[in-house]
């Protein structure tokens, strides 16, 4: 359990984290979501006592991180970037960390094996690809078999196989009862990996809920209808209080009534339907919606592209 209570952090004139409170529960994968510059990495650094908050506290199972003497047994962290000396091999990097907490040397081989780096364990970390660096970061986090995992952008730079691997790994770690917190700007990945979401923008909490609730509450749902009699159907639907938009291919985008009502109405008036489906917004879209006002750098085309991407249900 990670408990953040009114965390605030200022860098010069910039308020990086602003009165942020949240809880991360064990047994679940919690996604920490926010646009670039929202304060995710700063928050994670405060959890690990690397940065001191200007006010507020954060505890792990009730204890401040810097009160832990050998923290790797309790908390495994994968920090932004590589945070590894490029001249040191993966095996030596892990050995350095294992020894600092009195973890037996043999654990290094077990971890290298799990993250699939055994064959390149003696290679200098500076020669690693982005994906290999991420695997080393995950290995670092797992070294002490910790009950809490904190991962900053773990999926970055992984190939599809690697992404699938880490998704399964994180889910199985959470299923073992561990607390798993991962930050990401990849919303689509979060919707597949996370159970719970903490969304921040400009250092402030925007949402703290399950992934499903977040999408439900934030996103725009509509019923997509294709028919040869769209105009007549549109009129009937408007009379029922629905709002109608027309999609690029001529289909109706109906909000305000559900698919059942649309189907029943069409049947009652003898209108043939060629398509009837509920369009559910993606997490991507819900996220855009939620953080719209708190994105520092945005182009209109980005927003549109993301909005166009819908997940049908």
């Amino acid at each position: 359990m990670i408990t953040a209570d009114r965390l605030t952090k200022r860098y010069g004139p910039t308020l990086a984290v602003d009165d942020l409170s949240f809880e991360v529960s064990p047994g679940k994968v919690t996604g920490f979501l926010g646009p670039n510059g929202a304060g995710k990495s700063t928050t994670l650094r405060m959890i690990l006592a690397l940065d001191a908050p200007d006010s507020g506290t954060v505890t792990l199972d009730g204890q401040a991180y810097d009160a832990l003497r050998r923290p790797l047994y309790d908390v495994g962290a994968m920090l932004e970037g590589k945070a590894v000396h490029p001249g040191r091999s993966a095996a030596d990097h892990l050995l350095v960390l294992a020894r600092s907490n009195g973890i037996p040397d043999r654990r290094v081989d077990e971890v290298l094996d799990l993250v699939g780096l055994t064959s390149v364990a003696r290679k200098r970390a500076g020669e690693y690809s982005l994906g290999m660096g991420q695997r080393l970061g995950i290995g670092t986090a797992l070294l002490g078999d910790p009950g809490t995992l904190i991962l900053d952008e773990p999926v970055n730079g992984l190939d599809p196989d690697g992404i699938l691997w880490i998704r399964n790994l994180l889910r199985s770690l959470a299923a073992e009862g561990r607390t798993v917190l991962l930050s990401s700007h990849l919303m689509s990945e979060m919707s597949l990996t996370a159970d719970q979401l903490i969304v921040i923008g400009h250092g402030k909490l925007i949402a703290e809920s399950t992934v499903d609730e977040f999408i439900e509450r934030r996103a725009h749902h509509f019923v997509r209808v294709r028919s040869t009699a769209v105009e007549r159907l549109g009129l009937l639907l408007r009379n029922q209080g629905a709002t109608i938009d027309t999609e690029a291919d001529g289909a109706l985008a109906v909000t305000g009534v559900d698919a059942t009502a649309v189907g029943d109405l069409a049947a009652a008036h003898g209108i043939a339907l060629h398509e009837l489906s509920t369009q559910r917004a993606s997490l991507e879209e819900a996220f855009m919606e939620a953080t719209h006002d708190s994105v520092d750098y945005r182009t209109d085309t980005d927003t549109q592209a993301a909005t166009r991407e819908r997940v049908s249900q």
Partner: protein
Amino acid sequence: MMTVTALPRLPRPGTTRPLALDVARSEWTKLRSVRSTYWTFAAAIASMMGIGAIFALIFANQYSGLSVAEKATFNPTSVSLNGYLFAQLAIGVLGAIVVTSEYATGMIRTTFAAVPNRRLVLAVKAGVFAAITAVVGVVSSFGAFFIGQAILSGNTPHASIGDPGVLRSVVGAGLYLAVLGVLAVGIGVLIRRTAGAVAAVVGIFLVLPIVVAAIGTPAGTVSKYLPSAAGQAIFHTAAPGQHSLSPWLGFAIFVGYAIATLAVAATLLVRRDA
């Protein structure tokens, strides 16, 4: 579907071993697992013995041409230990880099996430580096002394290890390098960037003595208290006087500089974000 290989569980040890011991093993592993450590210590050893040998050769050839006054102050032990001039730069640079490379690579955050007690990390890091440097320093200092005296033998005055003050000088030159290493670790923490920290080390040990000498303060009243001169008093076996402190007083002051730098560094290290 790819299956996830299970990682064996790791039992938490009911350890009562001091944390400092674990951190020391970790810091030792850090040092021995990067190439720069080997290169820099090799450079320090080569400087100590090679440059010492060159100085000895020069004096062996030119001794007969020295003036009576020069012959009177000729100190064969000092001559053979002159490699410290370059060795101190190697050690100073490495001491600074041991810290600044962690800041440059982000490793410092990994280090403090593993051991949140930053004062302990700094103390152990400085201690491990000092211990290795002391061994390397003392061994290469003995090497330089014996090579130098072998070259000076013959018509040139030369020292033997049993002569008064000689053993102290030879061991002292190695210890000087070790304490300088601690000072450099502290400077690395204070400045955090490699270029700045290296410049500071070079400034304190090479530039500052020259500047102070050029300003010409009344007969060494200031210059003998500089870290460089105070530390070197232990192996410059000229009689102490106005221009130099007594060997152990000088060395004690030098150790004081190192401890003070480390103390300030520790305070800032705790206060600043990693």
